[in-house]
């Protein structure tokens, strides 16, 4: 929790400085979850994918098919064959539009916000650490 807060705070401070910090938060959030398979990340945002590929502890893939976790920026870029994977979105609205999405990182009024949907996490057998609990939501408002 402490680390996530530090990340959030630093992201807040350095929001204007680019996607690196956003990726750091994403990486931190994903590191706080566990699924029954090895985490392999794919993203429709090539920059994020590239940063994760070069600096992350997670494995990444260029093919959505091979991924186990998807970081999604836009609904339109989600391949149908991947719609059943664990999806983490970068827009609050996408949580409503993509039923498989289990959480989101987005900017609201200049502040970074994290939402983890509890029912979806449970239904997808995703286990989360205590650090993520403050961000759990019952539903999408």
């Amino acid at each position, binding site marked *: 929790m402490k680390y996530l*807060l530090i990340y*959030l*705070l630093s992201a*807040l*401070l*350095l*929001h*204007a400085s680019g996607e690196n910090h956003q990726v750091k938060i994403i990486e931190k959030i994903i590191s706080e979850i566990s699924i029954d398979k090895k985490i392999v990340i794919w993203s429709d945002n090539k920059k994020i994918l590239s940063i994760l590929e070069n600096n992350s502890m997670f494995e990444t893939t260029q093919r959505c098919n091979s991924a186990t976790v998807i970081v999604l920026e836009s609904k339109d870029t989600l391949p149908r064959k991947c719609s059943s994977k664990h999806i983490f979105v970068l827009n*609050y609205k996408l949580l409503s539009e993509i039923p498989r999405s289990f959480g989101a990182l987005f*900017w*609201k*009024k*200049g*502040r*970074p*916000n*994290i*939402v983890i949907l509890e029912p979806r996490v449970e239904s997808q057998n995703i286990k989360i650490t205590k650090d993520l609990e*403050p*961000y759990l*939501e019952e539903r999408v*408002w």
Partner: protein
Amino acid sequence: MVKKRELFLFISLFFLGLFFLYLYDYIKQAQDDIFTSIESNKMKNISYLFKNIEENLVTKNRVKDSDTLVKLLSDTKSRQAYEEHLSLLLTPSIKYIYLLSKDKKGRYRFLLDASKTDKANFYQKFDVKEKEYQELYRTKSPQVIRQNNIENLFLTYLYPVKVDGEVIAILSVDITTKIKNVVLELIKPIETFFVVLIIFIFLLMIMSIMQIFHYFITRKKIFTDLLTQLYNRNYLHEITPMLKLERYSVAMLDLDRFKVINDTYGHKTGDFILSQSAKIFKDSIRDSDILIRYGGEEFLLFIYDRGDGDSALRVCERIRENIGAHLYSYDNHDIRMQVSIGVHEHPSLEKNITQAIKIADKMLYIAKSKGRNRVVVYDEKSKSTKYIEEKDIDFVKEALQEERVTCHYQPIYDHNSKKILKYEALVRIIDNNEKIISPAYFLPGLKHTNIHYKLTQRILSIVFEKFKENSSHVSININFSDLINIDIENTIVKELQNNKNLASRVTFEILESDEIENIELFKEKIELIHSLGSKVSIDDFGSGYSNFRTIIDIEANFLKIDGSLIKNIDKNEKDFKVVKSIVLFAKEANLKTIAEFVHSKEVYDKLQQLDLDYMQGYYIAQPLEVLEVEKNLFQDAFSQ
């Protein structure tokens, strides 16, 4: 002694820099004051509006707690109505207005969001971590959050919506940096101006520091003698205006027979001796004393009067003893050195520092002539020294410029043939009062100076010119340093080489001097005189150190016996014996003898008993501007 100009510039720049830094800080503070003023003004307006909204929302709807508020605003219509109402407050500087409520888990949720952009959903969670949110619930009073890095937000104002004194929600407004930017834009040129000015002053300060640093570096180079690492004469010029002579004694130091060291062991050894001696000098004095390499092997020392009994004489004696006790070992040679020192203990009594140094130099000369390795202190009460000092270099310089230098001629008499053999040319200066000044009053002060050489040249010109016109013989006094001066040599050679008749009538009377250390060079110069057809006489023989071997070697023609042996010869038997011996020696060496200082009949008669060749003195004839003839001799002898 930093140059005052640079120091003043540096201090001025420093204070100017401080002043502008203060101004810059003042502007920054003024800027903060402006922001605070804008902030409080804005907050005041918003507070007033929020109070109305709070009243409308809570009182009209009889809201009792946050749950009833959530329930009320969960209705889309009433929510829209309030959001529309709130949106009226949006301006270019007010970006977001929203109502937050804390849920049971302590998370903040949007109840209303009147923002046009980035609008939140009803009851959507809002992650805020600033302590001011907690503070608002605790203090139940508005809070302001200064935003530094959130998009383009300047500050966030939090207003507590209260029921019965309890906070049930927060009305929040995010104000953009627009106003701040406007203020900053307005202030920026002034701020930039001051920043540039401060940088400029800072650079100037660095430049002046560099200049001062450079000054010290070059100053050290300019004022330091490379070999000895002592101050040089440039330093003397630098300190002269500031030096308080009443606090110092002046000493002139000269290493004895240094030329011999140079000639015998070479210049490298000479340099080694100089640097070692400088070190010994420094070790023998204190930091408050000033030691200067005055030139060659000469050193000038200003001894600070410490008032502790360590007198200038004691300091100089210490230096002399330390130099004498030191064994200089260089290139397998062990060398002992000595130093002669001339001291003027009260230089402030002189009209200037140059005069004081000149007197110390004279004392040094006396120390040398008394046998070296000694300290001679100037006695201000000594009249003779004073007298000599009165007619100094400037006196002679002016006389040369104004052509007031002349010669008087004293006959040298052949008492056997009753004929005048020749005339000795004796220099005189006619002073501004038409008074004839004898050389005793100005020659001692000229020693080794350029003026001395110029004076000798002038005498030669006068004498050559006069004797070209007649057939008489003449003696000219010249010392060794004159003889080795190239200009004087050129004058002699130029005049006599092409005038054999004149050359054959000229005798050069070489003064017996302790400077004739380089015998070979001395012989070489005498040979030159002989080669021109002129004669050589040894002057003042018997007064000093004469080396009989050298006298014979140089094949001199005449030997002039020193006046100190002649003047009392009629009363002093010892002098008579000495003169008799000299005459015998001269006969053996085939030298003609001349007795000078024949001032009385008694002396003249006594000298007749000896086999002397010639006589000269006031008894026979005094020096005159014209050439005296035989018939006028013995007429006014010693009448003056």
